[in-house]
């Protein structure tokens, strides 16, 4: 059964190729069918393989399929080989399953677009590359998938290429993530130099044997890998590209910039966690970066007016939580949050897409409002998504995954109380901005008319994702409520649980209650500001200090401004002042001097015999003088 593994990435690649070559001649129904169908096939195959994996696990809970040796130079012998284990299975499931529903949604959502086939070609290429990323058994193949998804992200952000700002957003995303990729590339070089292999399993097996904890190589290597992860997963300081990436079509935001690609960094760190564990200092940095990102992006989300940008900042913030979990060694928790987040954030983006379509492409949440009656399905499913994002207790998957992260950030041996406190503050902010968004869209006065309602395929997708946003949480329940650990048991074969300090159940319960109260408080604050006393929000933002803070948060804490001044402008300036390549002027200078000398000497050729005779005499005198003197 496992031999069919290669087919899972193969189907999307094949259909991408078909759509690129023949797409312009296909009717839309066919290109949509191929586009969504191929992902459907992969999803079915993933589920079959997953069931097999659970029923009769392969040896060591892993299976490697070598297709062919890719490169063979000296001891560098990466293969095109796929590695199946619990971690890649979880990733594959989310990619193909959520991916399929997003494709299904897109067949309806994108139907009026002329470049329908091109859209599906890029989307399929993306899914294929993402699958290679999570299945690659060596770092070079992982890099292939990694860069492949980056390319598709670039293509899809700039999908509506006629608008220059879309092109700018696409280039920004590509270049910023590639800055991180260079760090990762050098990390790969370093690991190869010291281990003599690029195969991930080999490196992880060797690492604890050849390196002492805190020694230079693992610290440097994990720092470099972290660089790649920060770029891809839009974490501080490389988070600037994601809000602009919302220029792409909404299904793209759901698939690439919420559910899958942006979590590649989380996957990378989880995959190479052995190296990170040899560098505890870097682990702490991962957590701190995660927390800082979660808070910064949370505050920014509070101030955004564009619905998709609210969700984008929210994504950055939620991935921050995953980084927090990774840094405290709670890899299982990070992956759990990755999965629930994929469901509810995809749901929110797709719901947002349905709303934006219905409201004549209006994206400003302050121009929405009062549409809960007219769009009931969207309302209820969006409510479920928002509840999950805000971590509403008991009934949402987001609650269970976020609680797990908060608890581990406190109880893990890498954790501490400060991580918990800031994490809980982040949960409060999340609740505020989520409720704010929800209230502004669905309550209050109607400001824009609903033009058309979502059709069957969009509705089905929303309902399915809403269902999973709810039930996905029940496979991992905390000690205080049932103590079910299906997910962490499953993934423990790859990501062993980091030892935690023993605390009484009461402590855990107390912390859960505190976090829950903060969420409730957050919802109340939003209620107060946006329903009960709408003038309060206005008062706050109209005061000079409030205005400054608001604008600072709105603009993403000045990172864009800083990078513009420090990187973009100097580079552009440098290339402008030396456009014509000053080195060339050396050669043209030589040519110029030669020409002048030529003219000078040719002027002496006058044809005048007396002049020649005189020069001859003078020359002779000079020569004789020199001869005599010397």
């Amino acid at each position, binding site marked *: 059964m496992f031999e069919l593994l290669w087919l899972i990435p193969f189907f999307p690649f094949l259909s991408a190729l078909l759509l690129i070559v023949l797409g312009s001649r296909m009717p839309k129904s066919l290109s949509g069918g191929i586009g969504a169908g191929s992902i459907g096939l992969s999803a079915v195959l993933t589920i079959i393989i997953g069931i097999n994996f659970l029923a009769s696990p392969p040896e060591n809970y892993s299976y490697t399929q070598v297709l062919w*040796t890719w490169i063979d130079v000296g001891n*560098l012998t990466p293969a095109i080989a796929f590695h199946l284990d619990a971690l890649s299975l979880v990733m594959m499931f989310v990619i193909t399953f959520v991916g399929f529903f997003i494709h299904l949604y897109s067949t309806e959502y994108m139907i009026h677009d002329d470049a329908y086939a091109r859209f599906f070609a890029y989307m399929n290429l993306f899914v294929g590359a993402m699958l290679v990323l999570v299945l690659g058994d060596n770092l070079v193949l992982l890099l292939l998938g990694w860069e492949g998804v980056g390319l598709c992200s670039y293509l899809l952000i*700039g999908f509506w290429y006629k608008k220059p700002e879309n092109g700018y957003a696409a280039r920004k995303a590509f*270049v910023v993530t590639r800055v991180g990729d260079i760090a990762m590339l050098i990390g790969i070089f370093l690991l190869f130099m010291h281990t003599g292999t690029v195969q991930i399993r080999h490196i992880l097996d060797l690492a604890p044997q050849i390196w002492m904890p805190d020694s230079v190589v693992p610290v440097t290597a994990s720092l470099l890998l972290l660089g790649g992860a920060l770029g891809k997963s839009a974490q501080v300081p490389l988070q600037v590209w994601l809000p602009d990436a919302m220029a792409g079509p909404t299904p793209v935001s759901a698939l690439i910039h919420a559910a899958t690609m942006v979590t590649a960094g989380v996957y990378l760190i989880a995959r190479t966690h052995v190296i990170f564990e040899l560098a505890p200092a870097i682990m702490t940095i991962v957590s701190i970066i995660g927390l800082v990102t979660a808070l910064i992006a949370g505050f920014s989300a509070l101030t955004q007016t564009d619905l998709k940008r609210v969700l984008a900042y929210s994504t950055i913030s939620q991935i921050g939580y995953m980084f927090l979990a990774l840094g405290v060694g709670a890899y299982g928790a990070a992956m759990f949050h990755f999965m629930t987040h994929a469901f509810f954030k995809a749901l929110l983006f797709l719901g947002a897409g349905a709303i934006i379509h219905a409201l004549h492409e209006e994206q400003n949440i302050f121009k929405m409002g009062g549409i809960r009656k007219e769009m009931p399905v969207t309302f209820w499913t969006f409510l479920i998504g928002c509840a999950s994002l805000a971590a509403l207790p008991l009934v949402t998957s987001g609650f269970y995954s976020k609680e797990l992260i908060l608890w581990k950030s406190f109880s893990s041996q890498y954790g501490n109380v400060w991580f918990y406190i800031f994490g809980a503050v982040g949960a409060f902010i999340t609740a505020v901005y989520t409720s704010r968004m929800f209230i502004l869209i669905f309550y209050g006065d109607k400001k824009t008319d609903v033009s058309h309602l979502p059709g069957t395929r969009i509705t089905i997708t929303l309902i399915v994702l809403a269902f999973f946003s709810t039930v996905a949480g029940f496979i991992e329940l905390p000690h205080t409520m049932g103590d079910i650990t299906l997910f962490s048991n499953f993934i423990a074969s790859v990501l062993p649980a980091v030892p935690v300090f023993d605390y009484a159940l009461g402590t855990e319960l107390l912390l859960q209650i505190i976090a829950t109260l903060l969420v409730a408080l957050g919802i109340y604050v939003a209620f107060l500001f946006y329903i009960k006393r709408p003038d309060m929000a206005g008062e706050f933002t109209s005061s000079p200090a409030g205005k400054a803070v608001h604008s600072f948060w709105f603009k993403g804490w000045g990172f864009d401004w800083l990078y513009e001044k420090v990187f973009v402008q100097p580079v552009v300036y440098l290339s402008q002042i030396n456009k014509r390549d000053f080195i060339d002027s050396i050669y043209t200078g030589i040519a110029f001097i030669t020409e002048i000398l030529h003219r000078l000497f040719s002027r002496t050729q006058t044809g005048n015999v007396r002049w020649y005779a005189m020069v001859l005499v003078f020359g002779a005198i000079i020569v004789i003088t020199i001869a005599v003197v010397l």
Partner: protein
Amino acid sequence: MTLLWLLIIPIIGGMLAWMSGKTGTQVPRWISVIALTVVFGLTLQIWYQYYSKIDLFTEQAWLIEFERAWIPQLGISFYLALDGLSLLLIALTAFLGIISVVVSWKEIRHRVGFFHFNLLWILAGIIGVFIALDLFLFFFFWEMMLIPMYFLIIIWGHEDKRYAAIKFFIFTQASGLMMLVAILALYFVHGNATGVFTFNYNTLLGTEISASVAMWLMLGFFVAFGVKLPAVPVHTWLPDAHTQAPTAGSVVLAGLLLKTGAYGFIRFVIPLFPEAAMQFGFIAMILGVVSILYGAKLAFAQTDFKRLVAYTSVSHMGFVLLGVFAWNELALQGAIVVIIAHGLSTGALFILAGGIQERIHTRDLDRMGGLWTTVPRMASVALFFAMASLGLPGLGNFIGEFLVLIGMFRENIPLTVFAAIGIVAATVYSVWIIQRIFHGEPREKWQMRDLNLREMVVMAAMMIVLLWIGLYPRPILNTAKPALDIILREVEEVQMVDTWDSDLEF
């Protein structure tokens, strides 16, 4: 004999094409296509014949040799030999040769016979450079590429063709003279030391030369190959030559002529003067990194499409220089893959630039924009090659650059980091090309036709080869391996003796 055919066919084909030029425009084209296809077929046949047993050539890398006395009094012989390295480069030459004939099908309309004569003679010269193992003969072919190329630019070039052609000629000629001096000096040094006066490469290998003389001779070769490569600061002829040359000229320049420089480093500079080359290695690597970054920076600022691509060539060839002077198996294999992949990706970008110029009569990027809607096929193809040029994994260029960098990392970490920054720079200029030509709002209303069948076949062939190299580069790596192993080993032996000597001094 096969080796001789590789030379004779394009030479005779070129003359036939010239003579048949009177009969019309179609005959010379077909003669050229047929001649080059035969050469390509011959190369593939050699490759097929030796591929399975190439591992056996561990002592002597020459798969085929051909030697006839030429001027025996001076120790000059007509000595051709081919190993895996030359084989790959000749295959590339024939492949790109066919492509340059096909892309000129509609572009070249006057003096068609003479055009193809020049084209085929350049290719013959290039093939000669790749298989001549007598230094005198090598220099002969080195000059033979030059003059028809000069004609190609000055007759069929664009607005500033005279300036560009003369600049090209002076740069290559002046640097070639330095190499000639170095060749002659080597000839006399070897002759005086051993009594055997010869230009034979095999014999000249391992000549005992005093360190200071070796450095000067090495520099003589280095300058000639550095100009061809081209490396900063002797690169400035390239943008002008590329911009002004007809499409076929640009393809041959970028795809092949520059590669003779890279080949020269691998074949001559390091094996003949290993110690001097290693001493100079650090400076060479710095020049490589400077070329990568400076070329990319200049590329970004250009508004002329062909000029932009020319500067990206400078940047990419910096990786070759880096790979050669890092001098380990990984980096060298990387350099060879870069040589081949860059020939294809940059060649294709020049073909696209030529195609655009043919249609709208401008290369000015400021006048383009939003062309995706008008020419979607061309845009997709351009996107593919732009991605190849920014080093997207899965395409050939990535394999080359990755191997160069990973090999380089062992030798010098800071320089590797700087070179890797070049990849970000490549991303910037590659997506910038796509943005300015195909994305955004159209600046002017251009009516242009999309790629036709002939052009699509050419582009598809190049894309398939790049994908093949990107996903399964092993045939190339395996073919080059025995040749590289031998060169590496010879140099290693010299270095080992050297370190042993210096150990004794302590």
